[in-house]
């Protein structure tokens, strides 16, 4: 059986990885918040959502986390009346991405908080390992 303290480092790293992927996808969403299509009636950029699942280690009965997939959101596109736009349909409406920057920001704060928590646990585990090693140090 592996040392639980070493396992913490692995689990924490999986958490950091998952939250970074989430953050990357959020950045993509925000960057493309106004990316409309180029041809009349074309679909614009669609908001992406990261889903997580736990990754169970049978030996340890502990579980890290991994990204299960990056799905596209199913909410409706925004419609704006811009007759001169290259992507405008015959009535003059342009489909804009279903990205709400406020929602993305809120999500980003949550990802940040989870990232911090994972990092905190890694630090804590490292401290514990150091204390165990320090027991050997002659004082």
């Amino acid at each position: 059986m592996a040392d639980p303290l070493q396992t913490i480092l692995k689990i924490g790293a999986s958490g950091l990885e998952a939250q970074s992927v989430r953050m990357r996808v959020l950045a993509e969403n925000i960057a493309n918040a106004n990316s409309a299509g180029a041809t009349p009636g074309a679909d614009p950029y669609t908001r992406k959502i990261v889903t997580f699942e736990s990754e169970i280690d049978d030996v340890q009965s502990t579980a890290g986390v991994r990204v299960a997939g990056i799905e596209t959101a199913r909410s409706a596109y925004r419609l704006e009346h811009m007759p001169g736009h290259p992507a405008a349909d015959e009535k003059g409406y342009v489909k804009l991405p279903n990205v709400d920057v406020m929602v993305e920001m809120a999500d980003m704060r949550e990802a940040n908080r989870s990232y911090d928590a994972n990092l905190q646990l890694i630090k804590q585990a490292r401290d514990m390992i150091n204390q165990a090693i320090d027991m050997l140090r002659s004082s």
Partner: protein
Amino acid sequence: MTQPYLFALASQHNRWLSMRQATIATNVANANTPGFKAQEVTPFDAVLDSTRIAMTASNPKHMSIGDIQQKDSDKIQGQDSWEVTHSGNSVNLEQELIKAGEVGREYRLNANVVKTFHRMLLASTKV
């Protein structure tokens, strides 16, 4: 005078604390996984009660009276969580971090007690 049973106790407690910390790490890593239920290990006094001296099995016909090791990794699935989100996830980051701090503190206490006792033993050997 009875020999203090301290070293065995301290190392057992530290192993239990490591296991608990790993469980907390699992909870934190899955803080945003839909449907994940927060986990908790069995309390240390319960682990201590269930640990007893096992007899050596020198013959395959000898029956074992239970595994004394790794009783500490048993999980209680549902801990009383502070909140359950809409997706069914019952991890609360504040609660987990408080527990992590508690574990770190107890671990340090154990390490220091062991260190002190060790120094005491050494003091008797070198005069």
